[in-house]
């Protein structure tokens, strides 16, 4: 099975293709475009969708039907509905996240935007409609009342493999929300998550999930890397458990990405960053390390073999770490310093497979 790792950067799209013991960098495509997310359609592997914009131009979505050789822009990119008098007019500033729909809904895709909005396409990504159940929810103005300095993102759109009507989304400084009726109504799902920046520690929403993932073989198992810790939730429970408490105290449990083993619901990887004082969000002490749990978060092991031993001050963003989905998965992450790192042994050791790229926003694998 040929492998491509798609690298979305602040300045364009790159591809890393596996060769005999080496990786070949291709691109850039869309040089100068801001690429937030590139995702292969597991239902139709030749299809890829890409969320893009430029510094000047409005946000859009591109679609490829030939594994990324050619791209065509959506005829109707994600956009909020027209407003009536007195309403606040929200405009999509960027399309930030893309998720393929359920395997039974072959042409359905979801997109998340900044400011926080949820959109659905029923024709493979050609035409997008705002999902009114979320965007016009009476409580949405309260759920998404605040924004981080870099914007207010809707991300981590999850479609339950066992039920296409069961959805989760996350908003940075908003929280996690769940729908059981195909997005017509939503409820917050944040109990147990810390929100150290809120006056009410038990607030029902307003939390800052950085990345939420769902295990494909055990969809009731959710993991979350939050601004305030690492969590696990086994549904139907509603209270998140802070599994990051088991991380070494000097490392803490702050980060952006969390990646799951595609076959083992108890195995996950995180990449901690510095969340102290003014939140540098760099590798802790300039010494990057991946941490892995193999017991659902009861314990964590530091994995830094091959990574820089000192003076490496990069950040790995929430879409910039992935597995290749195989039985024994390879792992990849891309840094804000433009490097791509890979591990073929479950994170035990790492090697740099690309460097000198622009700031990396997303890393995704395509089979």
């Amino acid at each position, binding site marked *: 099975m040929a492998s491509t790792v798609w690298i979305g950067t602040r300045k364009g799209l790159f591809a890393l293709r596996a060769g005999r013991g080496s990786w070949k960098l291709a691109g850039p495509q869309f040089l100068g475009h801001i690429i937030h997310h590139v995702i292969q359609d597991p239902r139709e592997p030749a299809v890829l969708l890409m969320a893009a914009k430029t*510094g*000047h*131009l*409005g946000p*859009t979505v591109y679609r490829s039907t030939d594994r990324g050789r050619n791209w065509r822009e959506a005829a109707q990119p994600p*956009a*909020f509905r*027209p*407003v009536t008098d007195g309403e606040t*007019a929200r405009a999509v500033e960027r399309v930030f996240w893309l998720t393929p729909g359920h395997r039974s809904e072959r042409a359905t895709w979801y997109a998340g935007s900044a400011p926080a909005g949820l959109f659905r396409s029923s024709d493979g990504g050609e035409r997008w409609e705002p999902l009114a159940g979320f965007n016009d929810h009476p409580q949405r103005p309260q759920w998404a009342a605040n924004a981080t300095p870099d914007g207010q993102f809707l991300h981590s759109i999850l479609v339950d493999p066992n039920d296409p009507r069961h959805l989760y989304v996350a908003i940075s400084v908003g929280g996690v929300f769940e729908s059981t009726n195909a997005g017509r109504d939503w409820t917050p799902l944040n109990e147990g998550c810390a929100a150290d920046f809120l006056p009410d520690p038990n607030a029902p929403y307003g939390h800052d999930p950085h990345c939420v993932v769902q295990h494909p073989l055990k969809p009731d198992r959710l993991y979350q890397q939050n601004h305030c810790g690492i969590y696990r939730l086994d549904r139907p429970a509603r209270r998140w458990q802070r599994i990051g408490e088991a991380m070494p105290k000097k490392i803490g449990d702050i980060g952006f990405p969390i990646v799951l083993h595609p076959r083992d619901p108890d195995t996950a990887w995180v990449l901690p960053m510095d969340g102290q004082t003014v939140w540098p969000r760099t590798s802790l002490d300039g010494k990057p390390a991946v941490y892995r749990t193999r017991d659902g978060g009861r314990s964590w092991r530091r994995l830094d073999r091959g990574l820089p031993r000192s003076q490496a001050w990069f950040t790995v963003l929430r879409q910039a770490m992935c597995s290749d989905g195989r039985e024994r998965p390879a792992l990849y992450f891309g840094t804000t310093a433009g490097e791509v790192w890979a591990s073929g042994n479950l994170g035990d050791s790492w090697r740099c497979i690309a460097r000198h790229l622009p700031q990396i926003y997303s890393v995704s694998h395509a089979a």
Partner: protein
Amino acid sequence: MSCTVRIASPLRSYTAGAATLAAHGGTLAEVLAHLEQRCPGIRFRMIDEHDRIRPHMKLFVNHSEARELSAAVRDGDTVHVICALSGG
């Protein structure tokens, strides 16, 4: 009304590389609608879903900046589409 539209380089992927196009319309909105017919997708990259000019776009009719799409365009005018960006 017939006018000339000068297209900034970031938008020329929509115009097959053309830096100028002829267009019709008595207002900026009509000119952009005509442009959209000829170059599908170009309008949304400049104008948001509430008909507001995007923050880093500037539209001029001749030498006057147009802040609303209701701005008048007269026969022989030149509409300039300008992109304003700074930083690395």
